[in-house]
């Protein structure tokens, strides 16, 4: 019988009751008394000098309460980058100020230069249209290579469009160059990791509220990390003391990274709320979401793989241009560097790896972490060039990977790019993949497809990623300006039920179901008596939020540590109640028991005693039963996996059907197998979306040419293949108490190269001399590749 409670069980997601019955409470659902509404005036040119802004007509319009421009925020701070990166020559990165509202220049289409607050949303929008701006348009900086050589700048004051030129690891550079020069075989591949628009189901929204009586501010906002948002607003942007600012992230309809970051709209509604002494609400339209949410990916990469004639890897070398857009979003400098370059050894024993990344300002929406954040880019480059190398050398795609895999007896394994993998077993994953995809039967299926006029291909991929972000000491050395621990408070109530306040925020991940499973397992009580509190900075301890597949590995570990403290204190109380020694008390199935006897008290009795401490040893034990723990991980966790898929290509139209996708992941121990499966499926959906359908496209003038669902293709149900998700090969993480690894991003990391490898394989099988197709593999691109 599968478990029905605690770790390893798959209870249905309790949060789904409210989500599926329309009772979720999102930011826009919150309606404070006397609310006013903000609308932003946004640039329709990509690059230009603001000559003048005339707000007089707007101010005179019905219902208008206030109009703001960049001038109103000159005295406050900029929205900062969270990581300081240095160039190869030691110079610090260029870090131009990102103001609340554009001031002096507009730098991308959608850049807000003014905001109107009015009695109704319609009045605010009418007035925003009435703002007159005179912009001296400049040529748009769009293409990254041209940006680096051109003389038109996104930020004139820095006189270059390069943010930094980063080498990782610079000491590897000469040896890697030498190894490639002398290698028997070198495979080179140039590829684009396409820009994607996050497209969370819920657009961003914020409500600012201010109480003149107490001088307290409250921000309701679509955030993945309320404390981080509060810190950024307090310490960098508006200077509101943290103790005067509460940030609430209520139900949030998806983030995928785009809601990690602080955005200017949040500062605007707070400032406006103070000025007007009434609540100010803003809810993005879908068009605004397309234009202003931080986009993902957007790398142009040249990768070289050097090996011997048998396919034993000698070196990887990459040169990447990474787009950061018009401004540095909070994690934009970390994503293409330490979340990308450090993964460039993959799952392989390769002695030489060198990564060069130049980040480039362009007149486009900021680019930042998006589900996977750097690791998908690394995996794509590595796994595509390996496939090309295998084709060149005539080696089987699985064999070339297996012969280079790090072996189980090599852990901990330190790669040439600075990570120490703690554990894994890549051959075991590949074994499972071969079985579940029935690789041996592929040729027969290919023949069947051929009989139907279709080209069948198979794609194989081995990924590794680093998540459970992150050890604060390590990331501090690498330039992070924050720590990346998390925190939990376990409050046992007097009647024995439990509230767990966590720093992680759930916006689709299922924390409200999973964290109680952990606590229930440890305490031996029913998880139904345990609830999670998250999202309100005034209620939860200071945790860093949810991204980088960190919630269970980091915040879940804090939950474990806090629960351990509860158990220890409970033992002391029970020992007193049972007139025994602490050391003799054990907690079994929710009963504190004197070992070897039948003397016991229930967990609930101990809780009650803690809060009604009559006949209580107050000189030794404080009353109450509430404990907090902060947990800072010792290392990243390293999920890995073998992914495979089969595709059919219609040679007449170029249309690709993914027939079956098998994802074999090593997530270590799994707390809720159903939720893990759902997370992988969701990740596959996004990865397949990137591989097959999605690309945010700017024209030469800096207009986003597919800023709506009429032209931006999101994956639909019938774009998804049959999915097999297998996590039977877990190797328990060695350094966190649950032995867990992150699972939220894996699907999006491992799937794009799998799909592209399969399509290239299909075309090559029909004699087309195709070595690569850039994503997304739309029918027209695939057809062009066949008929090029």
């Amino acid at each position: 019988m599968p478990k029905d409670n605690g770790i390893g069980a798959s209870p249905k997601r309790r949060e789904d009751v409210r989500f599926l019955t329309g009772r979720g409470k999102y930011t826009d659902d919150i309606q404070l008394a006397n609310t006013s509404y903000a609308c932003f005036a946004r640039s329709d040119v990509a690059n230009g000098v603001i000559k003048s802004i005339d707000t007089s007509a707007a101010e005179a319009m019905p219902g208008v309460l206030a109009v703001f421009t960049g001038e109103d925020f000159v005295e406050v701070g900029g929205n900062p980058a969270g990581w300081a990166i240095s160039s190869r020559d030691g110079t610090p990165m260029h870090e131009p100020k990102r103001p609340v509202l554009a001031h002096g220049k507009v730098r991308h289409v959608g850049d807000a230069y003014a905001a109107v607050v009015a009695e109704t949303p319609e009045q605010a929008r009418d007035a925003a249209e009435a703002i007159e701006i005179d912009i001296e348009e400049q040529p748009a900086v769009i293409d990254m290579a041209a940006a680096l050589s051109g003389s038109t700048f996104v930020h004139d004051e820095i006189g270059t469009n390069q943010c930094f030129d980063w080498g990782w690891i610079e000491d590897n550079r000469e040896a890697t160059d030498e190894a490639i020069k002398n290698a028997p075989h070198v495979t080179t591949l140039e590829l684009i990791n396409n820009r994607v628009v996050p497209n969370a189901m819920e657009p961003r929204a914020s409500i600012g509220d201010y109480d003149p009586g107490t001088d307290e501010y409250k921000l309701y906002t679509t955030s993945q990390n309320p404390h981080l948002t509060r810190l950024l607003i307090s310490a960098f942007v508006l200077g509101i003391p943290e103790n005067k600012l509460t940030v609430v992230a209520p139900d949030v309809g998806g983030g995928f990274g785009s809601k990690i970051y602080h955005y200017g709209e949040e500062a605007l509604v707070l400032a406006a709320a103070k000025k007007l002494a009434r609540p100010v609400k803003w809810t993005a339209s879908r068009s605004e979401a397309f234009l202003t949410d931080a986009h993902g990916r957007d790398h142009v990469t040249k990768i070289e793989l050097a090996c011997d004639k048998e396919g034993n890897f000698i070196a990887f070398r990459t040169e990447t241009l990474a787009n950061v857009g018009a401004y540095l979003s909070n994690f934009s400098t970390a994503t293409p560097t330490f979340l990308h370059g450090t993964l460039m050894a993959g799952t392989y024993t390769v002695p030489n790896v060198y990564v060069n990344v130049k980040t480039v300002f362009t007149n486009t929406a900021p680019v930042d972490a998006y589900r996977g954040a750097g690791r998908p880019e690394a995996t794509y480059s590595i796994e595509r060039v390996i496939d090309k190398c295998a084709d060149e050398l005539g080696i089987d795609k699985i064999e070339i990977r297996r012969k280079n895999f790090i072996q189980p007896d090599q852990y901990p394994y330190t790669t040439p790019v600075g990570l120490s993998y703690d554990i894994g077993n890549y051959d075991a994953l590949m074994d499972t993949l071969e079985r579940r995809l029935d690789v041996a039967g592929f040729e027969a299926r290919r023949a069947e497809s051929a009989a139907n006029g279709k080209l069948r291909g198979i794609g194989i991929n081995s990924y590794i990623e680093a998540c459970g972000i992150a050890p604060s000491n390590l990331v501090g050395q690498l330039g992070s300006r924050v720590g990346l621990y998390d925190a939990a408070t376990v409050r046992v109530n007097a009647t024995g039920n439990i509230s767990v306040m966590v720093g992680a925020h759930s916006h689709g991940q299922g924390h409200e179901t999973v964290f109680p499973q952990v606590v229930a397992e440890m305490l031996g009580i029913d998880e139904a008596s345990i609830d999670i509190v998250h999202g309100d900075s005034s209620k939860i301890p200071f945790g860093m939020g949810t991204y980088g597949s960190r919630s269970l590995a980091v915040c879940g570990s804090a939950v474990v540590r806090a629960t351990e403290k509860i158990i220890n204190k409970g033992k002391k109380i029970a020992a007193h109640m049972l007139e025994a020694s602490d050391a003799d008390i054990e907690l079994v199935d929710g009963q504190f028991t004197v070992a070897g006897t039948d003397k016991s008290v229930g967990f609930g009795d101990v809780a009650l005693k803690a809060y009604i401490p009559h006949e209580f040893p107050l000189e030794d034990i404080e009353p109450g039963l509430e404990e907090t723990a902060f947990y800072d991980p010792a290392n990243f966790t390293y999920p890995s996996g073998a992914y495979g898929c089969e595709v059919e290509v219609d040679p007449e139209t170029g249309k690709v059907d993914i027939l079956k996708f098998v994802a074999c992941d090593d997530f270590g121990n799994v707390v809720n197998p159903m939720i893990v499966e759902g997370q992988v499926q969701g990740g596959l959906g996004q990865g397949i979306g990137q591989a097959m359908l999605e690309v945010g496209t700017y024209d030469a003038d800096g207009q986003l040419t597919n800023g709506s669902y009429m032209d931006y293709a999101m994956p639909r149900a019938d774009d998804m293949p049959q999915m097999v998700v297998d996590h039977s090969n877990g190797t328990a993480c060695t350094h966190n108490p649950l032995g867990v690894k992150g699972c939220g991003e894996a699907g999006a990391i491992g799937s794009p190269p799998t799909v592209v490898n399969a399509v290239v394989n299909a075309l090559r099988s029909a004699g087309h001399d195709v070595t690569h197709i850039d994503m997304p593999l739309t029918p027209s691109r695939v057809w062009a590749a066949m008929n090029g």
Partner: protein
Amino acid sequence: MYEFDFERPSTIAEAVAALATEDAQALGGGQTLIPTLKQRLASPSKLVSLSGIAEMKGISADGGTVTIGGGTSHAAVAAGAGAYPALAALAGNIGDPAVRSRGTIGGSLANNDPSACYPSAALASGATIVTNTREIAADDYFEGMFTTALEEGEIITAVRFPVPDAAAYAKFEQPASRFALVGVFVAKYADGVRVAVTGASEDGVFRWTEAEEALSANFSVDAVAGLSASADGLISDLHGDAAYRAHLIGVMTKRAVAAAS
């Protein structure tokens, strides 16, 4: 959207009168107009909803002709135009269920989106567009992208389709919108075959006369296998260039013929 007046008349005559107001606009199912209004890209003084006009709804089949009221939804055509199976199939594959429940044939033909499905059926069938003032042959009706022979305030009250001996519509979907990247409607009549192409041309729906001649002589896939459509004047966009669309015209024509045969 900007403010506008709203009327929902119950007869064609009332609708025509309501549309006499300057900058008034007829509202069919709203599948194009409502998003346009929400984007503030149009500012009609008044919307005149045609959805309450009973005489503009319904499907009848009589003597080889299927007549569909201009206010009839795609879903109703899919379910009720069994006398013209290819037309019912086309209607049943427009958009998604929500679109099919709201969108109307009259709205689609009046809008004449270059990627819409219905114009190809109307043109390939040699349909008659019936308005409140006149009857217009399909060959005279479509005048280019988003342009038709309709006058200001003129309402499509019905569309009459001669039922062909054989017909099929083959659509290759644009991945995002799922409108036709290229859609080809082939209809075989006693006096010849008509082939209409949507989604492909900068001038909107058009007849591929070369294929019509070949198929009129020999209604088979082989008859069009060697034909290639010209890429001149075809749309190039994110989803496919003119050469790709020209190629797809050939492929979709073959598939339509195969399905109709």
